[in-house]
């Protein structure tokens, strides 16, 4: 165990527990206002929680017992060994790129020449050695963020915090910065807050979903995002999520009342809560019930058709289907009436909702 955190903020109704193992990168996903930034601010020492405790590599970062019982410990940010990389690079505008990166080592008392050597090494690591002499005003967003990464790492943090590091970047430069992050985060303890499911898949060893100030799910990216447990996670992963009770070879949904024939396999016993996840692209919409035995079909009202670039999303209360614009044109008159939404059995993932088999991180 490298890092462990318990956190309570009464005012914002946040109550969280988080562990990060040595060398592990944990991605935190959650809707806006779920308490993600509060979490990072608390770990960095910039936000004081009501009560809680955090420990990094055996050092207590803070220990604030509830209701003033016992000794309160609050280590200031500069003594925590925790670097925070924000959405914006926030490079010091009066220092060159090299001196920005050398700032951490210099603050730790490393002599100037050696601090600059360290800084040069980190600039090379993020493919920005050529920018060493530039001032922040002369850098593009992607370049600045690379240097901010180098600066955060040069201070040799025990834990690296990343608060949506790619969100402010141009879509054209984000992939390259993401690849660089994947390289430098390998084997490093880090917590990354993100909105982007791609960040979670490429950068994280483990994903933690936070909703309303609570951890609602966690596991490997594949576990959490391929077999989502919450509507939020399903939405991030771009999946239809249907939850209900297993009755033999059917999934019984309460609202809207529906019964879906499934190939349940070993997904729970009769009467267990189970979930079905399927990509909207795999779902088809037809006027008549398909005769194909390899498909399971549900009759549902078509609520609307939502154009999404080169396809159109046809939505019902239970399922969404991505159809071609040509097919959508044919469905246009049918909005408001009941149609057949069908799922190929091979594309549907059926799994126990409870997921008791999931190993809780120690």
């Amino acid at each position, binding site marked *: 165990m490298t890092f462990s955190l318990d956190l309570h903020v009464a005012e914002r109704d946040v109550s969280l527990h988080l562990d990060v193992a040595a060398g592990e990168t944990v991605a935190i996903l959650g809707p806006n206002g779920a308490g993600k930034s509060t979490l990072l601010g608390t770990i960095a020492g910039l936000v004081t929680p009501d009560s809680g405790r955090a420990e990094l590599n055996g050092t207590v970062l803070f220990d604030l017992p509830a209701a003033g019982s016992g000794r309160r410990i609050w280590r*200031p940010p*500069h003594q925590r060994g925790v670097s925070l990389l924000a959405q914006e690079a926030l490079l*010091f505008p009066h220092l060159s790129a090299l001196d920005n990166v050398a700032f951490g080592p210099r603050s730790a008392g490393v002599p100037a020449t050696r601090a600059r050597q360290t800084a040069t090494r980190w600039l090379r690591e993020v493919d920005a050695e050529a920018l060493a002499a530039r001032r922040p005003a002369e850098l593009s967003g992607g370049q600045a963020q690379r240097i901010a990464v180098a600066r955060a790492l040069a201070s040799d943090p025990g834990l690296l915090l990343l608060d949506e590091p790619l969100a402010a970047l141009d879509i054209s430069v984000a992939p390259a910065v993401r690849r660089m992050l994947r390289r430098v985060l390998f084997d490093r303890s880090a917590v990354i807050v993100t909105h982007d499911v791609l960040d979670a898949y490429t950068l994280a060893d483990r994903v933690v979903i936070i909703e309303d100030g609570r951890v609602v799910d966690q596991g490997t990216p594949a576990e959490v995002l391929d077999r989502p447990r919450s509507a939020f996670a399903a939405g991030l992963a771009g999946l239809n999520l249907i939850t209900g009770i297993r009755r033999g070879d059917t999934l019984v949904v309460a609202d809207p009342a529906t019964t879906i024939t499934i190939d349940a396999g070993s997904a729970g016993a009769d009467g267990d809560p189970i979930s079905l996840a399927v990509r909207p692209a795999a779902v088809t919409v037809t006027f008549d019930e398909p005769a194909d035995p390899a498909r399971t079909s549900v009759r549902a009202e078509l609520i609307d058709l939502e154009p999404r670039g080169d396809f159109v999303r046809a939505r019902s209360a239970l399922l969404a289907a991505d159809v071609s614009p040509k097919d959508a044109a044919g469905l246009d008159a049918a909005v408001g009436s009941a149609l057949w939404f069908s799922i190929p059995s091979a594309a549907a993932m059926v799994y126990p909702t409870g997921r008791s088999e999931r190993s809780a991180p120690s």
Partner: protein
Amino acid sequence: MTVPRWVFAMAGIGAAFVLLPLVAMVLRVNWAEFVPLISSEASVAALLLSLRTSLAATLLCVIFGVPMALVLARTDFWGQKVLRSLVLLPLVLPPVVGGIALLYTFGRRGLLGQTFELLGIEIAFSTTAVVIAQTFVALPFLVLSLEGALRTVGSRYEAVGATLGASPTTVLRRITLPLVLPAVLSGAVLSFARALGEFGATLTFAGSLQGTTRTLPLEIYLQRETDPDTAVALSLVLVVVAVIIVSLAHRTGEPSRRRARALS
């Protein structure tokens, strides 16, 4: 926005109101005697004393004003608003009132005067008194301009610095002060200008002894009664010095604005 024509007219009247008296003064200068007038013993003594004391006062403003601005801009405590208004009081106080207040603080019978007397230091009616009077009236200029700059820059860079392992003193030295350096410089220049022009508090608290407390404004006031030509010549010297200072303040103020724009 297109500025309406009548606004130009009003602005023109305002500008004339400021410039005309200066022109009137320059027209009265006795150019033939100008150099001898301003190089008399009393004039030179007053000019040197003014420069010396104003520099000392500016230094004191920086030494105490920078921490004051930092505390006002970066901390939050009960009564801070009241404290800020009180600290800025010398801006609106008639200088002669400031002089009286200083007299009852540092004078022989003042609040701290006896303490200083025990230490063998007599402040009232000394050059030290001039520096104190000038610092008193000039300090708010530096505090005010620096506090504004600190708020504009914000504390985000400082937070980043702290998470990189920099102690609060290192953050102050390597991040905060470099970022607001233009504001410190322009604030210092403004303080210097205010100290140089200081009259009322100085006369009340320090008196008017040639070479010891008679600064250039006091010398001008004194000469005006007996020797108007000298008074006008010295006034011109003071105007030239002030113009140089104001242009310096503008020059140092520019980069801070450019930087602020780059940040936003």
